[in-house]
């Protein structure tokens, strides 16, 4: 991005924020149209329910509007809204969580007393992520595997690896320590790796 385009974008955004703060209805509609699709994608990923995802996006815009005075002009509106919709989704996930989660241990590597893996040795996979993604079914296999993770692990994986929040931001959103985020993320990735392995491991020739 060239500095000129960047400064133009900043100026346009500052103008949009000023109009929003002034109660300009058309500015609000523009914001919804420009950002709504992307935010809906985020909400769908977290909630996996179209109606709830739309409700979360609506909540996001309404609470963002109410909090406009607290918007820091030094940050991007898109980033700010992204954080707000994520928090709206996490609140919904928390209120949804009624039954106990399945333990993740079954999906983690198992070790013998000497510290070696039970399924030693770990097999190679048939190719890199890029090669595997060239296959039509890979995306669906990976998404289904992510959906099989226990909810608290799925949430941290989405926050860090998919939505690319920092450890600090993820910790704040989840109300846990940064260390807890790191450990939970590591376990989530290990579990996901374990779920993907049967699909992608290189099988020895007969």
């Amino acid at each position, binding site marked *: 991005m060239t500095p000129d385009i960047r400064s133009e974008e900043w100026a346009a955004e500052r103008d949009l924020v000023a109009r929003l703060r002034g*109660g300009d*209805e058309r500015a*609000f*509609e523009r914001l*919804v*149209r*420009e950002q*709504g*699709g*992307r935010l*809906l*994608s985020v909400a*769908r*990923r977290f909630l996996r329910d179209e109606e709830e995802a*739309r409700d979360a*996006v*609506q909540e996001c*815009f*309404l609470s963002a*509007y109410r909090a406009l005075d607290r918007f820091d002009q030094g940050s991007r509106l898109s980033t700010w809204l992204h954080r707000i919709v994520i928090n709206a989704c996490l609140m919904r996930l928390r209120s949804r969580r009624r039954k106990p989660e399945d333990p993740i241990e079954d999906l983690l*590597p198992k*070790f013998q007393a*000497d*510290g*070696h*893996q039970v399924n*030693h*040795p*770990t*097999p*190679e*996979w048939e190719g*890199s*992520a*890029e090669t*595997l*993604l060239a296959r039509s079914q*890979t*995306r669906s296999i*990976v*998404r289904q595997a*992510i959906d099989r993770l226990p909810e608290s692990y799925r949430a941290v*994986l*989405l926050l860090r*690896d*998919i939505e690319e929040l920092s450890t600090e931001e993820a910790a704040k959103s989840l109300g846990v320590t940064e260390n807890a985020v*790191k450990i939970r*993320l*590591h376990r989530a*990735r*290990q579990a*996901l*790796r374990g779920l*993907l*392995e049967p699909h*992608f491991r290189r099988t020895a020739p007969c």
Partner: protein
Amino acid sequence: MSDRPYITCRELIEFLHLYLDGELPPDRVVEFERHLSVCDSCVHYLATYKETIALGREACRDLDAPVGPEVPEELVAAILSAHRSGR
């Protein structure tokens, strides 16, 4: 060469995320790399752990495609209506 025993696969896998994030102290990094130099299984584990992160990221990124920058018209209408009635 070090006479110390190699760290186990369990130790390596348990702290792999810290190794990848550059958060291990230098002497631990040496131990990790010493283990990796003799353990193909952990080399494969490390490689497939990294591929898992990349696969997750790319597989989910694709979900944006059918939506694009467009937001469903009925959602726009619902948000604008809620906005007007809440003001």
